[in-house]
């Protein structure tokens, strides 16, 4: 079995917006690429996402948002992961995120941000390269 089949990813939709077309398409593409995908469903608070990530012992969290609340919600998720000692979980994100917000979000610890129009293959490839099962030497 290829090593990547062990990679577990929590795909989450923080905030109140209900636009889940993108998150569902990405979740399916990751699953079809052989990862284990857990989708949280909609309207998740940062607390709910971090609890789920720790309970499910995931290696990565993929966040999707387009409501403009990313500058509030993403840093809060990273902060909670740190507080719970789980900041080795790789966090990546996608959605409607203006270019000028990206540097600050990356500085806060989001590993990668995929903007609209990114091919699914690019996201899958990035996960293959940057996410390793936790507890396994990279």
């Amino acid at each position, binding site marked *: 079995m290829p090593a990547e089949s062990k990679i577990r990813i929590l795909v989450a939709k923080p905030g*109140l917006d209900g*636009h889940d*077309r993108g998150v569902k398409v990405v979740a399916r593409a990751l699953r079809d690429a052989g990862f284990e995908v857990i989708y949280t469903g*909609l*309207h998740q608070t940062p607390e709910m996402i971090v609890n789920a990530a720790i309970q499910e012992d995931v290696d990565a969290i993929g966040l999707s948002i387009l409501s*403009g609340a990313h500058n509030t919600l993403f840093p809060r998720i990273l902060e909670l992961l740190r507080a719970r000692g789980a900041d080795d979980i790789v966090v990546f994100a996608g959605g409607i995120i203006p270019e000028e917000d990206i540097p600050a979000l990356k500085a806060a610890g989001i590993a990668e941000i995929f903007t609209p129009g990114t091919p*699914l293959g690019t996201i899958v490839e990035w996960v293959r390269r940057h996410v390793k099962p936790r507890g396994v030497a990279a």
Partner: protein
Amino acid sequence: MDPEALARLEAERRRWEATTLREALAARPERRERFSTISDVEVGRLYTPADVADLDYLRDLGFPGEYPFTRGIHPTMYRGRLWTMRQFAGFGTPEESNRRFHYLLRLGQTGLSVAFDMPTLMGYDADHPRAQGEVGREGVAVSSLADMEVLFEGIPLDEITTSMTINAPANVLLAMYVAVADRRGIPRERLGGTTQTDILKEFIAQKEWIVPPRASMKLVQDMLVFGARELPRWNVISISGYHIREAGATAAQELAFTLADGIAYVQAGIDAGLDVDAFAPRLSFFFDCHIDFFEEIAKFRAARRMWARIMRERFGARNPRAWWLRFHTQTAGVSLTAQQPLNNIVRVALQALAAVLGGTQSLHTNSMDETYALPTEEAVTVALRTQQIIAYETGVADTVDPLGGAYYVEALTRELERQAWAYIERIDALGGMVAAVEAGYPQREIAEAAYRYQQQLERGEKIIVGVNAFVDETPRPIPILRIDPEVERRQVERLRRVRAERDPARVAEALHRLREAARRGDNTMYPILDAVKAYATVGEICDVFRAVYGEYREPAII
């Protein structure tokens, strides 16, 4: 066509295929093996009268203003009156949105259309912990009647019609609108406009809900009864395909699920004891206009014909106005690209043209910057001017249904209708739309379609200019509207002031009476109106419903 003419045509077609076409294909093969619409309906090389040979003009098309209204609901269509140009607007504080409304009215817009922010759409006040970071971002924040009073300051509610894109708490916002009018002394029968109120579409696609589907339908029923009694010019429900399409549905799915939602609301009205001939004429529709030009025109024409048949044959409506499918259209937000945003102006113009050729009664044209944020003034001006150019310069509004009879358009209209009826039959077999939603049926069908389309994009079978073809890496930034984080603080401040200044005993009493009405199954609209007038907030009123009916949680399906 008579059989002889048809046989001659078919023989000629075979000859053309064997000679002219064959030579051309030998010299230059076609660009693709298979052509299909954006919804993946196969497109033929050529359409002739043979493709619509069994089309019965009087039965299937008829005359505009007459059953089944395929060619338009009005006999003269835009020769008599152009469509309403209604740009959706709302952001930040009620003050800022009010300024934008006045700006749009000065530009020549003919109706208002209000966008609310996510907390309001979900029935949370601006100071709710879940509202953090979301206040005023995707629309205007309205937590209490005080916000509503500011939002409509200086707007003549008896002259301008207002459309409000609000669903789960539509009952609260409608009550607020009525309360503003009551206070100004405007008679309720002069209030014209629309609340979207399409909760089934929320469960299917947009996903801003409060209580479970069956309880939600009861609240919609209360609004229908209230509207029938108090607001003769108000469209209580705008049955919406827009969000269904944006979530990834095909054109046929948008058509089918929207009409199936309409069937459920008509049934709900009948079950509440309303006369179908009296309330059905106040139902209106809201569709998406995507980029596949002819498919969209066909969709609108099929929608009119199908709804007329549903109302007359299924519900036995006898009032011709109950057979009318009146609709607002918005160009497809999902078709706009963050890459090369100026291209969006062209996309929107073509989509708006399709909506007009499809016979819409009202139109919103998206602004070029809407993939990033709410539109700037300049962007929204270009979007509105696009409509005005189509209306006044192109001449397309000067004859009724100009594409009627075009072989391809008629064949495609029938194909979409065929696919949509098949979905409606399936939904009927599942026990109607509420049961279908509870079973996750439309949600799954849409997610499937979205994934299929995405794969076609990845394989290059579908092209989006600037995204998977003609890519230009040079960034060409356009101005973006930023929402000041101060908005949230100012909204929370106003809310606290309202809570401090109102009469707490009156609020508690009103909320108590609402709770009792909801428990007993009485009409909730009257107690909501009292609560709103006592300055109870959207969150407080919705908490009553959460307590009585429980909150909805969607099973997460991918």
